[in-house]
C-alpha cells in the first residue's frame, strides 16, 4: 500500500486521523523512524510544519531559499541575537539544507553518556548495524581531499603544513556535481536528504505525510497521549489557515528537533520534572575569514569536505573544538560580519578571494557546562537563551588562533577577524593581537547549525526527559526521537548519529507496540 505526501494547501477541511504511530517532524530523526516503522507494517502519520519541496523548487537564490527552507525565515537566533541559528524547516528537516558531513558517534562520547548520564546499553556495538544500514541507504562514503574546493583545501593544506590532523569527510551524496549549493537545496538530487530517501521509503510503505502542518500540543490524559492537535499553515506566511488536524495514535513521537521539540512539550504542559528545554547544546561556531592572492570562490564546490579534530581533546578544563569550512554564497558570507559602510563594502567586493574556516565548540562536557535553555515567551514564541561562558570564550580565542595559523600557513595574505573591531593579521607575529581581542556574546558573530539536547536521554527521571529506549519517563506512549535526546553535544556533525538512533528506535517502538 502506498502512502502520500499532502500539501497543506490541499487540506480545506478539518482532519481527524487515526494511526498506529504519529511522528511530529520529518527530519533526520522523524524520516528514518517513519520508514522503519512503516516497513514493519505499522500505520504511520507524519506531521511536518515545513513545506514539501523538490529540486524543481530550488532556484539557488538565497533570497527565496532561506525563507522557504529555514526556521523563522532564517531569522532564528538566541534571545540576545548573539547566536544565529541555522536550522532547516521542510519535509526532510535540516537534511534538506545541511552540508552533507557525516560521522559516526564517537565511542568516547557514548561511554561518557553511559558514565555521566546513565545512558546504558547505547554503545558502538549496538549502533553498528544501524550505522551500516543508514550508510548504505544514504550512500555515505568518503570524499577526497583531491577534489575539495579551494576553501576546504586551505584547511587541509594548512593543517598538514603545521603537522595537525585533517582528513576528508564522508558525505551522503550520490553522483555529486560539486555545485556548492547544499545549503540552498540540492538542485540535482545528489544529496541523499531525507526528502528523497527515507521519506519516500516511508510513503512507499504506506505512511501519510502532512506537510505545512504544525503540531500545537499533545493532549495527555491519565498518563498517555490521547491526541495530537495540529493546524494547517499557509505556506506563504506560516499563519494558520483555520483548518485543524487531530491525530489519535497508539504511540506519539516527537521528532521536531532540539528547539521546536522542547517547545512542543512546554506548550503541552509536559514538564513535570522541569528538565524540558535544559541542557541545549549548539556546537557554537566562530568563523575566521582570510583573503588570498588567487580566487577561492568558496561559493562553489562541495561546501564541507575536510575536517580537523586536532583540538577536540585539549587540556583538562578546556573546551575542545573541531574545524571545518563553510560555503560562501553572499548572504551566508555577510552573516559573519557586523561591518558598516566602506568596510562592509570592501569585504563583499573581495568575496571571490575570501576563504572562511569555522570552529565548532564541543559543549556539554566540562563540569558545570549546562549549555542553553529553550523556553516559551508569554506570547507563545519559542525562546532560546545561551550564555557564552568563560570556558567557551577561551575556546573561541584558541580556535581563532588555530584557524589564523592554518590560513597563514596556507598562504593567506590577510586574515581578518569577525570582531566588531576586526583584527587584521598578515604574519604569525600578529597572532598576539588576535589573542588580546575580546571574545563573547555580541563581540563577534556566533552561529549554530547543530542543535542538540533539551529533552535529554538518561536513566534518572529526575535529571532527564526520556529513558534510553526513547520513552518519556512519565507518559507511556510518548517517545522522543531526534537530536534533542542527546545528553551532550557530539564533537562531530550530528546528522548520522540521529539517523542511527532513529533506526535503533524504530525497532524498539515497533516491539513496544507489538506487546
Amino acid at each position, binding site marked *: 500500500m502506498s502512502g502520500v505526501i499532502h500539501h497543506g494547501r490541499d487540506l480545506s477541511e478539518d482532519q481527524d486521523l487515526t494511526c498506529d504511530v504519529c511522528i511530529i517532524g520529518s527530519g533526520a530523526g522523524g524520516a528514518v523512524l517513519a520508514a522503519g516503522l512503516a516497513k514493519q507494517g505499522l500505520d504511520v502519520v507524519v506531521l511536518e510544519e515545513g513545506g514539501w519541496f523538490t529540486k*524543481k523548487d*530550488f532556484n539557488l537564490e*538565497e533570497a527565496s531559499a532561506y525563507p522557504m527552507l529555514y526556521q523563522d525565515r532564517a531569522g532564528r537566533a538566541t534571545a*540576545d541575537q548573539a547566536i544565529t541559528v541555522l536550522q532547516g524547516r521542510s519535509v526532510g528537516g535540516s537534511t534538506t539544507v545541511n552540508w552533507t558531513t557525516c560521522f559516526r558517534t564517537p565511542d568516547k562520547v557514548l561511554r561518557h553518556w553511559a558514565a555521566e548520564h546513565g545512558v546504558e546499553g547505547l554503545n558502538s556495538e549496538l549502533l553498528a548495524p544501524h550505522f551500516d544500514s543508514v550508510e548504505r541507504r544514504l550512500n555515505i562514503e568518503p570524499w577526497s581531499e583531491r577534489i575539495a574546493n579551494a576553501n576546504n583545501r586551505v584547511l587541509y593544506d594548512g593543517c598538514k603544513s603545521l603537522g595537525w590532523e585533517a582528513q576528508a569527510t564522508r558525505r551522503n551524496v550520490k553522483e555529486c556535481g560539486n555545485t556548492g549549493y547544499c545549503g540552498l537545496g540540492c538542485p540535482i538530487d545528489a544529496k541523499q536528504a531525507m526528502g528523497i530517501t527515507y521519506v519516500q521509503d516511508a510513503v512507499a510503505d504506506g505512511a501519510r505525510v502532512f506537510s505545512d502542518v504544525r503540531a500545537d500540543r499533545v493532549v495527555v490524559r491519565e498518563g498517555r497521549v490521547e491526541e495530537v492537535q495540529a493546524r494547517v499553515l499557509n505556506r506563504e506566511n506560516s499563519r494558520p489557515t483555520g483548518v485543524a488536524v487531530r491525530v489519535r495514535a497508539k504511540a506519539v513521537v516527537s521528532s521536531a528537533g532540539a528547539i521546536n521539540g522542547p517547545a512542543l512539550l512546554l506548550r503541552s504542559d509536559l514538564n513535570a520534572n522541569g528538565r524540558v528545554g535544559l541542557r541545549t547544546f549548539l556546537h557554537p561556531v566562530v568563523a575566521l575569514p582570510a583573503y588570498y592572492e588567487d580566487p577561492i570562490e568558496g561559493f*562553489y564546490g562541495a561546501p564541507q569536505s575536510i575536517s580537523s579534530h586536532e583540538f577536540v581533546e585539549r587540556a583538562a578544563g578546556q573546551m575542545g573544538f573541531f574545524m571545518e569550512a563553510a560555503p560562501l554564497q553572499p548572504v551566508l558570507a555577510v552573516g559573519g560580519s557586523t561591518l558598516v*559602510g566602506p568596510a562592509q*563594502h570592501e569585504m563583499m567586493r573581495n568575496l571571490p578571494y575570501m576563504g572562511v574556516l569555522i570552529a565548532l565548540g564541543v559543549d556539554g562536557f566540562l563540569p558545570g557546562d549546562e549549555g542553553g535553555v529553550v523556553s516559551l*515567551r508569554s506570547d507563545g514564541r519559542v525562546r532560546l537563551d545561551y550564555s557564552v561562558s568563560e570556558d567557551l570564550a577561551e575556546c573561541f580565542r584558541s580556535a581563532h588562533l588555530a584557524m589564523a595559523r592554518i590560513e597563514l600557513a596556507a598562504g593567506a595574505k590577510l586574515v581578518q577577524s569577525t570582531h566588531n573591531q576586526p583584527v587584521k593579521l598578515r604574519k604569525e607575529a600578529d597572532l598576539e593581537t588576535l589573542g588580546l581581542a575580546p571574545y563573547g556574546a555580541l563581540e563577534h558573530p556566533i552561529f549554530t547549525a547543530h542543535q542538540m539536547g533539551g529533552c535529554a536521554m538518561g536513566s534518572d527521571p529526575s535529571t532527564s526527559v526520556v529513558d534510553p529506549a526513547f520513552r518519556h519517563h512519565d507518559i507511556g506512549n510518548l517517545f522522543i526521537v531526534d537530536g534533542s535526546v542527546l545528553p551532550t553535544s557530539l564533537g562531530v556533525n550530528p546528522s548520522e548519529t540521529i539517523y542511527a538512533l532513529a533506526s535503533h528506535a524504530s525497532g524498539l517502538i515497533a516491539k513496544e507496540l507489538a506487546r
Partner: protein
Amino acid sequence: MGLGGGALLALGGVGLSFWPSRLREPSGPLLCLSPLEFSVVAAACEAVVPGYDGMPCPLELRVPEQVDAYFALLHEGDQADFKSALGLLENGFAGLLLDGRPRPFTVCTVEQRQETLEAWRGSVIALRRTAFRALHKAIVGVYYAQPELYSHMGYSIPAGLASGGAR
C-alpha cells in the same frame, strides 16, 4: 529579540526631540512598519550598504520595502521587538543623552549614521548591541541577496543549474 524593554524609552523620547524626523516615501503600501519606522530602516540601509563603486543603492533596490515585507511575515512579537529597536535608534532625546547626538537618526548624514550604528554595535548597553545585530542582519541579508549585486561581487549562479536544470 529581547528588545521589548526599549519600547517605552523609544516612544517617550521621540516627542522630546528638537528636530523632526525625515520621512521617506515607500514605493508601495507598507505591510508592517509605520512610515517613520520605514524611514529609519531606509536611513540605516544607506549607512550600512551605501552602494559604493557602482554597486546599486539599497533604496534603488527597494531594500527597505523588502525588510518591511520580511518582518510582516514574522510573529507579531518579533515585529514589535524590531519596531522598538527602530524607535530607539531614531530617538533624538536618547541620542543626546547617550551619544551627544541630538538629532533623530533619519536627519543625520550618512557618516553620522555610520558612527551611530558602530557605536551601537559596541555599546555597553546590551539592548543596543542586540538591536544593532537585528537591524544589520536584516539589511545585509536582503541587500546582498539581490541578483543585481552578483556581478559586483564576482559571483554568479552557474547557468542551467537552478531548479534541477543540470539533469
